[in-house]
Every structure is written in structure tokens, then in C-alpha cells.
């Protein structure tokens, strides 16, 4: 049944309304960013509630686009923006909102530049929702590119990175991807004479060379977003240097757009001219996974390890997307949902630890010994992250692994080796932090997370456990 209110439009617009409130909110030394943070958090929660409500109106199938809304944009050329969702897109939206909420919680004590940070966060959220709800090629492209703006601003303003080099790479790779996708979309639009739906692209018949060029462009555009070698360098530069948890989370949500792009664009029955691209992608993907996992093992920087963990998993999901079956795509979605929450929580806890280390001068080794509450939640998240049965990653990864093994044994074993290596890297860092034979002085100065903070983190853990029991528990409820 079609709902009365246009949920999807509201979901895209609500963060923008939040921005208006943010602009009006008082942000001075007295409020120390608290005011704007509350407005932003409230906006995210309200949007989350809207998304959960939208879930009640759809059937839980992958690929069945529902709640379709059409808004006329241009008369000449005739372009309308069309929104629609399926269970998968909504699930990703919930995951992204929760991850950003965790990120907001992570920056709650940072007063400087809080207002701009919140504005760009909500802007990113709005564009991300637009991207996930886009059904036609133009709205898809617009949101695909638009979300780079807030991210660019955030990395530049709050990333605390060696700005010039990192931003150069960021611009280089993403601009290249944007241009290629733009060219592909213009060619398709020109050929069809109208704006078409994403799921119809594979049916468009172009000349052999054009088809080849268009698919290559689309391929390169999405690959540039995913940290696949050699494109991984821009995001690894950001990830390894960004200290702000919110910026880190948002920057690392971006590769999801590449995976999602492939999911929506890439046809299950491949045009002949494209088959070699898939083979190339598969080979490069598994090699990248292995390459990054190897580096994660020797790199002592936990930010890099988390980046590696994310990259390996994104590519793992991408391999799942490329399998010649639609059956497991919902499983990919369930797994990504938990994955987003886990990496966000890990990074936020890590930034808390870093702050404590900066304030007290304790070393990384054994730092968790002083923070028993944090230690428990951190351990839980690491265990969930490496695939223990504590979140929806467990069962759904099992399904993806099974299909991968079914498809190609050698590729799958290489990919699984990378998963094991990256899990080992995460675990080894956990033990470095829990080591009890290298305790430093100044114990009394070190703060553990407060009861309220622990409750928040355990809340996230409960959501993860619920996602293990039933990923769509809130829908059935």
C-alpha cells in the first residue's frame, strides 16, 4: 500500500531542515558546541525514525523498488528525479544513520568548529540518503557526486591531515570517477533520449565500441570510490591520518557508494564486451585484499588496521555483489549493516583512547588495562568484527563465503586468507592494548568511559546482538 506521506522526500530533506535549525542554533563559548550537537543528533534520530517507519510500508525483498516518488525537475531536457527504495537500501540507510550517530557521540567534547562540522555531516547524510533512494540515472549521478562536497570540506577543515597531499589525491581520484560517470550517463541519455531507471541500463543497446566505453567508464567511476589497488591510496591517506572520528566514519562510508553503485548498475547477465572487466576486477580485488591485509599485519597504526579491515570487507562484499546470483544480496546488506556499526564504534572508542594517551602520556601497550569498561566493549566489538557470532556479520558472511566458494575456489581462498589476516591484525592490536606486563605510571590520571558512555556503547552492542538474532527485528516488531 502506497503511504500518504512522501517518506523518501522527507528522508532526503529532513537533514537539510536540520541544517536550517543548526544555522539558527546558538554556538558560543558557553554552549561549547553542545547545542548544535544536540540539534544534529536529534535530526539524525528523527530521520532514523522516519526510515524505520518507511520499513513498515515495504515488503522485505531485494530489488523490488517500492515507495516510488517522482518529482519533475527540468522540462528541456525532460528530466525527473525519481526516488524509490527496497529493503536493502533502507537497511543501509539505517546502518549509516546509526554509524553517524555513533560518530556524533564521538565528537561530543569537541567545541571548536562544531557547527560547521554538524552542517557538513547533515549535508552528507542528506546526499547519502538521496543517493540510496535514487532510482534514475540522473538523480543517482547528482547525489553520487554531491556527497563529495561535504566530505571534501570535512577532510579539509577537520581532518587534521597533511592537507595538501591528501586532498590532492582525494580530488584526483574522485574527480576522475565523476567525469567518467558523467560521460557514461550523458551517452546513455543521449542514446535513449530520456532519463531511465538504473535497473534498465543493462538493457540499453549501444554500438559495440560505445557500449565498451560506457561500461568501462562506469566501472572506473565506481572502482575509484572503492579502495581497490591502485585507487586505495587516497582513502588510505585519509584514514591513516584523520584523527576526528566523525570525519573518519564519513570518509569510510564513501566506499560503500562504489559497492552500492555496482550493485545497482551492474547487470547480472553481463554484456560480452564486459566479461574480461569482471575477471580483471576479481583478480585485482583479491590481490588488493591480500596486499592490504599483509600491510595491516605489520603496520602498528590502529587507524590503518581499521582502514584495512574496512577495505578488505568492502572488497569482500563487492565480490559478493559480482556473484551471478541475486539471492545473497540481502545477506550482503545485513552484513554491511553490522559492519558499519562495528567500525564506527571501534573508531570512536579508539579516539577516546588516543585522547587519554595524549593527556596522560601512557603508551598504547596495556592502555586498556586502566579502562575496564572500555576494554569490555572494545573487545566485544573486535570479536564481532572478526566474525564471531555476535552480530549479523556472522550468518550473512557465512552465506557470502559459501557462494564465493561455490563460484571459484581459488579466488575465495585468497579472499578468505585476507579476511583471516586482517582479523589477526585487529586481534593483535587488541592484545597489545590489553597487555598487562607493561603498565605505566600515572594510573590515577587515566579516565575510563563513564557509566552513561558505557551504556551507550552497550546499547550499540545490543543492536548488534539483535541483528545477529534477527537483522530485521524492528520491522517484525
Amino acid at each position, binding site marked *: 500500500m502506497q503511504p500518504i506521506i512522501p517518506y523518501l522526500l522527507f528522508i532526503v530533506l529532513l537533514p537539510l531542515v536540520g541544517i536550517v535549525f543548526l544555522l539558527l542554533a546558538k554556538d558560543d563559548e558557553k554552549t561549547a558546541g553542545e547545542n548544535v550537537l544536540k540539534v544534529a543528533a536529534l535530526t539524525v534520530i528523527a530521520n532514523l525514525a522516519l526510515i524505520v517507519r518507511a520499513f513498515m510500508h515495504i515488503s522485505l525483498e531485494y530489488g523490488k523498488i517500492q515507495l516510488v516518488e517522482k518529482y519533475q525537475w527540468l522540462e528541456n531536457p525532460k528530466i525527473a528525479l525519481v526516488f524509490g527504495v527496497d529493503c536493502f537500501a533502507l537497511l543501509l540507510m539505517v546502518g549509516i544513520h546509526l554509524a553517524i550517530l555513533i560518530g556524533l557521540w564521538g565528537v561530543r567534547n569537541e567545541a571548536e568548529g562544531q557547527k560547521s562540522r554538524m552542517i557538513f555531516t547533515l549535508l552528507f547524510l542528506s546526499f547519502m540518503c538521496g543517493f540510496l533512494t535514487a532510482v534514475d540515472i540522473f538523480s543517482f549521478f547528482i547525489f553520487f557526486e554531491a556527497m563529495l562536497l561535504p566530505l571534501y570540506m570535512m577532510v579539509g577543515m577537520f581532518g587534521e591531515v597533511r592537507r595538501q597531499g591528501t586532498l590532492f589525491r582525494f580530488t584526483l581520484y574522485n574527480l576522475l570517477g565523476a567525469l567518467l560517470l558523467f560521460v557514461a550517463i550523458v551517452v546513455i541519455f543521449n542514446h535513449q533520449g530520456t532519463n531511465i531507471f538504473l535497473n534498465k541500463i543493462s538493457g540499453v543497446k549501444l554500438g559495440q565500441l560505445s557500449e565498451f566505453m560506457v561500461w568501462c567508464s562506469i566501472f572506473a567511476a565506481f572502482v575509484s570510490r572503492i579502495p581497490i589497488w591502485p585507487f586505495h591510496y587516497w582513502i588510505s591517506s585519509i584514514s591513516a591520518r584523520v584523527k576526528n572520528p566523525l570525519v573518519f566514519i564519513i570518509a569510510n562510508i564513501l566506499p560503500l557508494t562504489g559497492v552500492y553503485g555496482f550493485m545497482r548498475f551492474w547487470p547480472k547477465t553481463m554484456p560480452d564486451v564486459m566479461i574480461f572487466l569482471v575477471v580483471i576486477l576479481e583478480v585485482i580485488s583479491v590481490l588488493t585484499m591480500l596486499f592490504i591485509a*599483509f*600491510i*595491516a599485519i605489520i603496520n602498528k597504526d590502529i587507524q590503518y588496521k581499521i582502514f584495512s579491515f574496512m577495505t578488505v570487507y568492502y572488497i569482500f562484499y563487492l565480490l559478493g555483489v559480482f556473484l551471478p546470483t541475486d539471492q545473497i544480496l540481502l545477506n550482503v546488506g545485513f552484513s554491511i549493516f553490522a559492519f558499519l556499526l562495528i567500525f564506527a564504534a571501534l573508531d570512536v572508542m579508539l579516539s577516546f583512547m588516543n585522547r587519554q594517551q595524549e593527556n596522560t602520556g601512557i603508551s598504547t601497550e596495556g592502555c586498556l588495562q586502566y579502562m575496564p569498561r572500555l576494554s569490555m566493549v572494545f573487545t566485544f566489538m573486535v570479536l564481532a568484527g572478526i566474525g564471531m557470532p*555476535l552480530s549479523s556479520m556472522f*550468518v550473512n558472511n557465512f552465506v557470502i563465503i559459501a557462494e564465493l566458494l561455490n563460484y571459484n575456489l581459488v579466488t575465495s581462498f585468497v579472499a578468505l586468507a585476507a579476511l583471516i589476516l586482517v582479523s589477526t591484525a585487529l*586481534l593483535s592490536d587488541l592484545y597489545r592494548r590489553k597487555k598487562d606486563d607493561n603498565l605505566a605510571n600515572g594510573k590515577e590520571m587515566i579516565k575510563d568511559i563513564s557509566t552513561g558512555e558505557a551504556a551507550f556503547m552497550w546499547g550499540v552492542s545490543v543492536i548488534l546482538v539483535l541483528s545477529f538474532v534477527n537483522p530485521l527485528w524492528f520491522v517484525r516488531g
Partner: protein
Amino acid sequence: MLALSLFKLFCLGLFSEIFQKNRLQKSWAVIVLIFAAAIIVNMLTPDVMVAGKNFVFQWIDTSAIKVKLLLKPSTEMYRFGALLGMITLVVMFYNCFYDEGKMRLRNGGLYLLIFIVMMFLISAQNMMQILISVCFVDILCFYLLKDSNLKRRYMFYNMMADMALIIMCALIWGQIKSLNLGDMLQFVKKAPDKNIILGLWCLVVAVKSGVVLFHDFVLDLKKVSLVRGLFIFYVATPMAGLLLMWKMYPLLAASAWGHYVFYAWTAASVVWAFLAVFAVDDLKAKIMYWNMMLMGIMMGVLAVSKLAFVKLVPWLPWCGIMISTAMILPIVAASNEVLVSKMGQFAKKIKFSLLFTLLVIAAEVQIISALATKDVYWYLWIAVALQLLSVAHVLGQIYFAPAVVDEKVWALLKNPNLFYFLPLMAFVGLVFSHFEFAAGAVCLALGVVILVIVLRPMRGLNCFYRDDTLQRVSPCSVLYDWLLVTPIKVVGRVLWLMIDFVFIERTIINMLRKLAALMMKIVAMLHKDMKTSGILFTLLGVAVLCWAYYFRGRF
């Protein structure tokens, strides 16, 4: 009923985990123990465990995968449930009064939760239930271990095993789309990847059981209190490994080599542990080696015959627990001195402990005499003889070797209090009342053991205790370091430097920068007010025209 009892235990375990009390911990732990004992004793009856109703929970029901969780009462469930339940209660009892640390309530809760998960493993009829149970045991044990180095090794070994198990199950499920154990076993017989599946399975069982090559994490258990160590040994991870082997037993028949792998592993474990007992000085490490030996023996029994295993398993773990308890008596008596080289002549002061140790040995011999079936008869006797020989050798060193004991320790040396002897008394009493007395075997075994204790024929091997390297270094860790960890680190570093830094940063990014600079330069030249720029612009236009003409109609 069974599900209800487990649910009650779950609530009790959860209560112990969540409501941790700093005050009156011991009292709270005792209260939890009383409730747990009431529930477990009530549950461990044939009416509930054999003739009770099935409990089925439809967990996942999607187009991709369907999973049912099942609790099915059966004779095996009764046997294994009784074993694990009773060990859990005994361990909880010791946890209340003897375990060091302030986490009595929490540990009690964890023991209960692990027991519940193990019951799910015993009852599992599908791969997902097995997978989840095995992984949950690891997670709960991880929280049970307090030492960070121990946790590290434990998790690395078991994470690898869990991953291997997941891959194995995924490999099967991917092809037959059924999680049912029966379907799986049918499929594996004809599966094209049969050898990979079996290889993974053997690896998982070996790692989990802590047999040789994977015994380091088991050996580390000497660092936690004996109560916790024994619980993990006989209720949690290594037992989960054996149960995994038991649940998927028909896999062995699917290959020509499966049996031989387990025979080899068993033999290697028994021999390795036998030799290690002579080499290491630390009595706690020796105890762990004896348990490892017993685990190897049980694996061997299962590899030979499933029936013999089911018959022996309710008793054999008790032998391990009781021998460990008996061997811990000298440590307790000697104010926690753990080095055998610093003991000797204890027979003068703690005869009672020696007497009970001998009784426990007699009880083990009695059990083997009564339960060894034909197919495992000689194997079992040889393995147990090796075990008892090494026990006797160590007892000889402790009780009759020339004393090199610290004066203070010697002055304080006395038998531990009665609580330590109670379970030993109960065990010996139960064994000799339950089985018909095998006088010949028991007397012969005791005679040989006493002779070895008194004469100490292998005392020359004590020289190993003085070798620092032998006492300190674990050969398996060194092996892994050389064969696995170091190559991975070297490859990682090379990749990082060569590809990430030299190739991308110094080559590609630099090239792109230079390319951008060159383009800017060309554009700047074109825009200069010069005649050549006009010509260049015109040539560029002509080139574009030519290109468009050449490719006409192809788009």
C-alpha cells in the same frame, strides 16, 4: 523440560554476569551454585534427558538460508550432559571457595553459560548450530581467561580453527544448500572437494582438542587457576573439539586417510606429552601435559571406535581431573612451590597425599579394565601405561628423591585441608563401588607404579631441569614464528615499501603530478600571443576532425 532447565540456567548465568557484587561475593557465588545444582540435578534424569520432548526454534527462514535450533533428548545427550553438568558443578564449588581473584560470581556465571552452549553442541543436528556453539564457547572462554598473553594465544589458535570450520561448512552448504548433518555426510562422500573438506575438519578438531602442534594454548592454562584450567579442558574448548569430531564422525569414513591422520596425531600427542613430562620442571606444566595426553587418548579412542568413545567418555575426563587434583596436592602442601627440582622427600611429611594419589591411579586402572572394549584394548593400555609411568616418575621425584627443598617450605609442609581430598575420596569410592573390582590389573599397575616411585629408574633425566632453554622455549611457538609469522611480516613490509610507497607514491602520483604540470604548460603556451600557438590550435582542431571522421558510425 530440557529447554526450560537450560533457560533457567541461562538466566542464572546472565544474572551472575550482570549483577556483579563486590561485597559478599562468596555468598552470592554459593547461592548461584545452590540454584544451579538444583536445576542441573533435576535436569539430569532419564525422563528429561532421554525421554523428554524436543525443542525446536525456527531461527532463520529466508530465501537464502534456513536454520533451526534443536534440543533433542537422547542417550548420548544424557551421557555427555551428565559428564559436563557434574564437572561444571564441581568446578563451581571450587570456584566458590578456592579460586583466586575477586570474580567468583562472574566466573560462576561463565561456567554455566559455557555448559549451556555445550549442551547445544551435543544436541546439534545442523552445521549452523555446531558453528555457533563452537564459536560461543571460544568467546566465553576468552572472557574466562584473565591473563592477556594467554588470551592472545587462545584466541589466535581458536580463531583460525573457527575460520576453518566456517569455510568447511560454507563449502558444503554452498553446494547442497542444506545445513543438515545427515545431508552433509551423504554429500561429502561424493564431493569433488572432499579432501579439502576433510583436511579442514581434521585441522579444526586437532586445534580445538589441543593435540600436539596446537597444544601451546592448552599448556598456557597452567597460568590460570587449576579449577578454571580443568574446566576449559574438559567442558569447553578441547572437549568441544572432541565433540565436533564425534558429531561429524561419518566424515572419517568418507576418506581413506582420515583415520590415519588421527592415529598419527594421537600417537604424536601421547609421545610428545610423555617426553615433555620428563623434560619440564614446572609441575603445573606437567599436569597440563598429562591432560593433553588424555585428550590425545580420547581422540585416538574415537578415531578407532565411536562406541568405545561413548562408553569411555563419561569416565575418562574424571580421571584427568582427579589425577590433576592429586598432583596439585604437593604444590598446595609446599606453599605453592611448582618446580619439581625443588621438591623431594615429601613422603616424610605428606603421606596422606601420596596415598590418595595412588588410589586415584588405581581408580583409573579400574576404569580402563572395566570399559576398554576389544577394538581399543591394547591401544588404550599402552597409552595409559605411558601416562602412569610418567606420573610415577614425577611422584618419585616429589616424594622420594633427595630433598632440595627450601627450609621455609619444608617447615610449612603439611597435607592440604580436607576439602581437597573430598572429591578424590568421592571419585575413588564411586569407581570401586560402580565397577567390579579388577584385582589383577589394579594390583599389577599399582605394583609397577610403586616400584617406579620408590626406585626412580629414570632419575638420570632430571638433568633436563637444568637446561634453561628447554624450560623456557616452546618449540611450536618457534616453529610458527619461523614458518608463519616471520614470512607474513616480511611479505607485508616488502609490499608496503615497494608497492605502496615506491610504486604508487613515488611513481604513479609523481607521474600524474608531472603530467598535470605538463598539461598546464601546454595550455599556457597555447594561450600565449604567438603565431605558433595559433598553428597548434588549428592542428588540434584538424586532429579532432580526423578522429571523428575515422570513427564515424561506430558510436
